[in-house]
């Protein structure tokens, strides 16, 4: 009965006309962002973050989360039609999606990807609704030491699963933590590492930092390819609805992708990207004809596309119940909620239930909206794909500039953004991932406060982190993960 009441509450919030409109805007912008290569969900959410300050926290998270799961839908379009993933979680869709398109089956590929995404997205919201309340209730037992250990475990997992060198990922997490210490210390009121620059008193702004790392740096990288022409499938896309045989072939893949994606989405560092890769690998492994993968097998589209949507939904579980962001996009969402003065963590469900249930309701509706936005409007998305990058990048720059400026009405935020933009560009060139940095930047200050509170409780003894059972489990798991590369030669990466 309680569950039904909650569900009714979630729909009541989501069906409010303004919320419904914002959910639609989020889904639409998300699809657009997914379709356009070079503008990922992280950059777009940070672009819209300043605009969301005029909204209530519920409205803001409905809009921003819509962009996140919407981009998962849109990402497949470019993968299938151009062989360029619109965002990272659709990389693997290129393998079979583009091959299907080359064989004249672009319609069924787009269709199955939208249907799979819808089923997986809805499954993820259902699971989010089911798992979150008991998990949040359990997390209410957490004190500062448990929170520190859990954050430590989260950061460790993110670095463990990140692509490339784990040492580099760990270094980026440290850099993010250090950058998070800039500003006035909340415990003592002492200025730290501000270099007497007034704009740094409140710390490094999340919005300019993220826009620099994901927006500006991405454009700077893409400028190298800006004058190259993209080859877009010229044939007319027909028969978007997959045949009965297609549906029969894909049904199992969609179910497996949805389940695997959701649970991988919950793990910090996992999320939609890892989910899509693992789901594809699983499908190929259990298939009686693995050699057909990469040559236009519809299961190679259905499975990763379901998994990335389910993974995106799964990532909301640790955010809304524990206050731990699993990936950079969710970290930005969390940063947005923090700016709105919302305390994200186990108390969110009891203190601000309208936020949690509002997201749940909007995700149900948003998924249905996306099905409508994606399939019948495919012609429009294909036209947008044809926009030259040389026309597109000045607009991305412009949105970043305005976004950074309007955060605090100061041009210093523009300079901060440019510094992070150049930093992000060099980081990518030197093989450093920005995701652990952003995650650490967001949870660093909260983690520090909890760390110092823990030491005050224990009288300065670090043993508090291993004498409390829950905390000890988190610490030992994290240490095991950190030491595992020494034991196992290979580790799973995104």
């Amino acid at each position, binding site marked *: 009965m309680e569950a039904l009441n909650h569900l009714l509450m979630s729909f009541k919030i989501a069906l409010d006309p303004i919320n419904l409109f914002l959910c639609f805007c989020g889904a639409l912008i998300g699809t657009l962002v997914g379709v356009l290569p070079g503008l990922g969900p992280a950059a777009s959410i940070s672009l819209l973050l300043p605009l969301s300050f005029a909204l209530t926290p519920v409205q803001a998270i409905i809009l921003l989360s819509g962009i996140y799961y919407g981009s998962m839908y849109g990402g497949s379009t470019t993968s299938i039609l151009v062989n360029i993933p619109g965002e990272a979680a659709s990389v693997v869709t290129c393998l079979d999606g583009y091959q299907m398109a080359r064989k004249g089956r672009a319609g069924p590929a787009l269709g199955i990807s939208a249907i799979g995404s819808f089923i997986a997205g809805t499954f993820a919201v259902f699971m989010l609704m089911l798992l979150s309340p008991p998990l949040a209730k359990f997390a209410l037992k957490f004190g500062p030491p448990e929170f520190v250990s859990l954050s430590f475990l989260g950061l460790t997992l993110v670095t463990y699963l990140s692509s490339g060198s784990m040492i580099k990922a760990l270094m980026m997490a440290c850099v993010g933590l250090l950058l998070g210490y800039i500003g006035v210390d909340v415990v003592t009121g002492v200025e730290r*590492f501000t270099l007497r620059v007034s704009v740094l008193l409140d710390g490094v702004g999340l919005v300019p930092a993220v826009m620099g790392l994901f927006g500006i740096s991405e454009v700077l990288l893409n400028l190298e390819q800006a004058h190259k022409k993209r080859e877009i499938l010229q044939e007319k896309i027909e028969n978007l609805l997959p045949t009965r045989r297609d549906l029969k072939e894909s049904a199992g893949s969609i179910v497996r992708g949805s389940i695997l994606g959701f649970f991988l989405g919950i793990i910090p560092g996992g999320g939609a990207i890892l989910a899509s890769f693992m789901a594809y690998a699983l499908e190929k492994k259990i298939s009686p004809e693995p050699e057909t993968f990469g040559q236009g097998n519809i299961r190679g589209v259905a499975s990763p596309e379901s998994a990335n949507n389910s993974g995106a939904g799964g990532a909301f579980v640790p955010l809304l119940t524990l206050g731990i962001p699993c990936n950079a996009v969710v970290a930005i969402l969390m940063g947005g909620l923090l700016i709105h003065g919302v305390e994200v963590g186990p108390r969110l469900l009891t203190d601000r239930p309208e936020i949690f249930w509002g997201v749940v309701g909007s995700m149900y509706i948003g998924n249905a909206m996306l099905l409508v936005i994606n399939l019948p409007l495919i012609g429009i998305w294909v036209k947008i794909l044809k926009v030259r990058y040389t026309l597109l*990048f*000045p607009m991305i720059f*412009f949105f970043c500039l305005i976004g950074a400026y309007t955060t605090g009405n100061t041009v210093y935020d523009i300079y901060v953004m440019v510094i992070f933009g150049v930093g992000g560009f*060099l980081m990518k060139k030197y093989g450093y991932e920005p995701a652990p940095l952003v995650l650490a930047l967001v949870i660093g200050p909260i983690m520090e406060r909890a760390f110092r509170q823990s*030491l*005050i409780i224990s*009288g*300065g003894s670090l043993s508090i982190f291993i004498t409390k059972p829950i905390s000890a489990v988190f610490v030992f798991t994290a240490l095991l993960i950190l030491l595992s590369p020494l034991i196992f030669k290979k580790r799973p990466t995104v």
Partner: protein
Amino acid sequence: MKNTRDLVSSLFWMAFGVLFTIGGLRLGLVRMGIPGPGSMPFIVGLVLIGLSLIHLIQAVFPTSVLGEKIFAEWRTLKHFLLALVGLIAYGFFLKNLGFSLTTFLFLFFALRFIGREKWTTALIFSISTAVVSNTLFTALQVNLPKGILGF
């Protein structure tokens, strides 16, 4: 053969760690029996130094070497520098020239000199974007600088 790129970056992050470690020490590790404002920067700074050191060793004895240059050709470096100049100039002139004029100049510069669009395309695109965005932001009551020309 050393991996120069990793060597340079590990030295950079090591220096970054050293700065925060020293800063942490100066801020104080303990205050009135409780962890001081410098405690966490000190600890994390030390960890970063340690990780950079491991990375430095890996760079001296690499298993693979990144061969590709940061900027493959002069044109990419030129575009990179032009973009930077444009972005910084936007911040520099925004207050004095105002939102509309700075936006027009920035977009025109980016379209024409980085994107190599035609003069007419660049002009039409930048003027229309500046006008539309100004109207939109005024309607949304977003506070943007008007500059010496008053728009």
